[in-house]
């Protein structure tokens, strides 16, 4: 009895405390709503709930407390260490002052955004053998809806975790990892469905995009990126090559709620370099596909690189915008491609508006009026080797770009690198690599590899400015309404630049590069924070309290 009274007193005291806290900052409803996902980044800076910040993948925050004038006063607030092997490639999520972060090795955390202290940790055991993730045991982030987080795994599962505890709610198998399938992308949650795809373009998979019911984990639909017999596009694969033609989906797409269309970039056809066995365009590899979010049916496609032979996955991040082009309002999707071209497409029908190289390209210099690249001679890999620009990693890759709707500028980390490509006939063995070639660095002194952050005008394709790095950067970006852009270089520097001019404003040596990660920004207790995943650390940055107050 006494214990009960003590407990009641304790609860009453607690309630008073909670009341005070609520007065200072309203706690959001316990469940993440679909409306919150539709709203994207709010001016109050209270959340970051999807991979790209919003369904359009702008990664452009409305927050303005940190400015070009005060960014040099940023101070570290805390650093979180993963304690695992391997590096972050993730975009963290934030809601109600808690960060939700996926890491390498099937590990994930909930972290107190105020202090960097872990609230829970989830770890899924990796299979002892047979794992085939080609390019690192990585993960690119959570999706969220209701009280659940969604995470793909290296052994090709989709998991739902309890946001409060990290306990597993359901576990859906995408495919058998022993057959070359893996999954690394951040799920996109749209209308109660969790949208995910699979990696494995180097292992003879047949790629697909899946939708799962967020409540139950039941599969709602599947879209194969390689059409089966009888389906349109099937005949763009010779013989039975379609069965192991690759075209994985390993980077999160965009969503247009009005058109109810999902936009995803697809991976390379397999085998990557030796293509005699897969004559034809190889649809829908290296394409942007527009998929009905309710049914999983394809509405249109645009193939950037028909019959690719350079491993140029179109798994870059599609970015949606509404632009006025030649006096007309256009709904567009912007896409900087691994093949070295920047594209502006009409996202209602997939028609090309603009396609122009944003790095040096030797395989094609222009896109013809029919929307196909105009191929240059002598750019097919063979036993002797052919030098082609860009290299395998490409003009850009999966690291996210940003878009500033006020200046209409598209920002992307670009690479100027060439490679010698080789091809030879491969043999298919289930679960083994199936690439049929390789490449070699080109190290001549007149071909110094470098990278640059480039600002591209999506209406003309012209470059507005660039900031040159010492070597190619693989960092993702974050931009803000105050005119800042955060990036990183390959040498481990975190950089803040003026997004109108490309002028460097501030830097900090982090000891690891932001390979494929992007910073996020949010308000916490009245101060704007920038959170940066790099290597095995997360670091939170903010202005000193007095600077925040007197901005």
């Amino acid at each position, binding site marked *: 009895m006494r214990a009960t009274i003590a407990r009641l007193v304790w609860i009453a005291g607690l309630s008073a405390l909670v009341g005070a806290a609520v007065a200072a900052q309203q706690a959001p409803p316990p469940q993440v709503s679909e409306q919150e996902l539709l709203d994207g980044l709010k001016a109050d800076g209270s959340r970051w709930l999807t991979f790209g910040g919003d369904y359009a993948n702008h990664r452009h925050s409305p927050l303005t407390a940190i400015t070009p004038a005060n960014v040099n006063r940023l101070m570290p607030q805390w650093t979180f260490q993963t304690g*695992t092997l391997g590096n972050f490639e993730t975009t963290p999520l934030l809601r109600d002052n808690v960060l939700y972060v996926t890491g390498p090795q099937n590990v994930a955390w909930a972290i107190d955004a105020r202090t960097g202290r872990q609230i829970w940790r989830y770890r899924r055991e*990796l299979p002892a*053998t047979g794992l085939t993730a080609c390019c690192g*045991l990585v993960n690119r982030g959570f999706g969220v809806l209701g009280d659940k987080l969604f995470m793909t795994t290296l052994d090709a599962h989709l998991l739902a975790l309890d946001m409060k505890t990290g306990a597993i709610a359901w576990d859906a198998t995408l495919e058998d990892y022993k057959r070359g399938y893996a999954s690394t992308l951040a799920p996109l949650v749209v209308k109660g469905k969790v949208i995910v795809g699979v990696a494995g373009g180097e292992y003879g998979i047949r790629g697909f995009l899946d939708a799962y019911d967020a409540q139950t984990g039941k599969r709602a639909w599947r879209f194969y990126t390689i059409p089966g017999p009888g389906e349109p596009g099937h005949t763009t694969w010779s013989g039975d090559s379609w069965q192991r033609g690759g075209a994985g989906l390993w980077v999160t797409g965009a969503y247009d709620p009005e058109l109810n269309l999902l936009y995803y970039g697809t991976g390379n056809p397999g085998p990557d370099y030796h293509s005699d066995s897969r004559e034809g365009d190889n649809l829908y590899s290296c394409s942007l596909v527009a998929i009905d979010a309710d049914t999983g049916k394809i509405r249109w496609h645009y193939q950037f690189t028909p019959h690719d032979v350079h491993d140029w996955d179109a798994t870059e991040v599609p970015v949606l915008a509404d632009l006025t082009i030649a006096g007309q309002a256009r709904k567009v999707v912007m896409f900087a491609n691994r093949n070295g071209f920047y594209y502006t497409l009409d996202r209602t029908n997939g028609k090309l508006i603009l396609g122009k190289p944003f790095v040096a390209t030797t395989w094609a210099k222009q896109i013809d009026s029919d929307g196909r690249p105009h191929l240059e001679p002598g750019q097919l890999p063979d036993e002797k*080797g052919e030098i082609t620009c860009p290299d395998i990693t490409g003009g850009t890759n999966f690291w996210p770009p940003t878009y500033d709707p006020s200046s209409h500028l598209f920002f992307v980390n670009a690479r100027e690198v060439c490679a010698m490509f*080789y091809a030879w006939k*491969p*043999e298919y063995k289930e679960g083994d690599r199936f690439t049929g070639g*390789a490449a*070699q660095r080109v190290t001549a002194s007149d071909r110094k590899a470098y990278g640059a952050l480039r600002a591209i005008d999506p209406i003309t394709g012209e470059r507005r400015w660039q900031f040159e790095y010492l070597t190619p950067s693989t960092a993702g970006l974050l931009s803000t309404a105050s005119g800042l852009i955060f990036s990183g270089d390959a040498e481990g520097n975190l950089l803040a630049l003026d997004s109108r001019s490309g002028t460097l404003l501030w830097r900090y040596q982090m000891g690891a590069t932001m390979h494929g990660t992007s910073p996020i920004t949010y308000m916490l207790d009245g101060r704007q924070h920038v959170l940066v995943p790099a290597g095995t650390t997360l670091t939170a940055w903010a202005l000193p309290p007095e600077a925040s107050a007197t901005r």
Partner: protein
Amino acid sequence: MGIFRARCADCHGIDARGIRGPDITRVWAEGRTDGGLFQTLRNGVPNTEMPSVGARTPDVEVWQILAYVRTLAAPAPNDPPRGNAQNGERIFRANCASCHQVNGKGGRLGPDLSRIGAARARDALVNQIVGAVEGSRLGYEPVTVTPQEGQPIHGVKKNEDLFSVQIMDTRERIQGYEKEKMKAVADDKKSAMPAFGPDRLSQSDLDDVVRYLQGLRGFDPAVRQ
């Protein structure tokens, strides 16, 4: 070669000098043993992208992969050995040892050559000595740092980013410099290694030096008490 190309080349490059994965032609020079490398291939590197060759791959195929990579690092010579190693060592001590260590003795500005015989073929050694190789290996690129006051500092680059450079200067001092505080930081065109052409080294002396280098296979630094 077939197995290497199918299973390894995509990451390590067709020449094994690294693309996504590291350069594996230098592993012997760095002191890795055949036995250790066999285990790396057999087991993979746990928790990294480097997979095991798999249980289905017989031991003999693992050795074949290693043997092939070794030929990429240091192809077997086609011509019979020539030159006098003893005289080569004397020439090396007089001309090279001020910059190159062998078995714990010598200068530090250039690469340690204690295991060079296991790492590089005869032709590659000759080309390097006569100055026929363009550019410098990472970590040995020549650089000149000019402070606001005082003499320019010549050295080799150990590391660099947009804002700083870390060097070993010709007096073997290791030191970092912030670029914005310097008058100039410039990459030098000419290698820190002088070219030993026919004017400086006769054909027979060259043969002798190369013969000496070919015999360098590392040493055991363990202290016997």
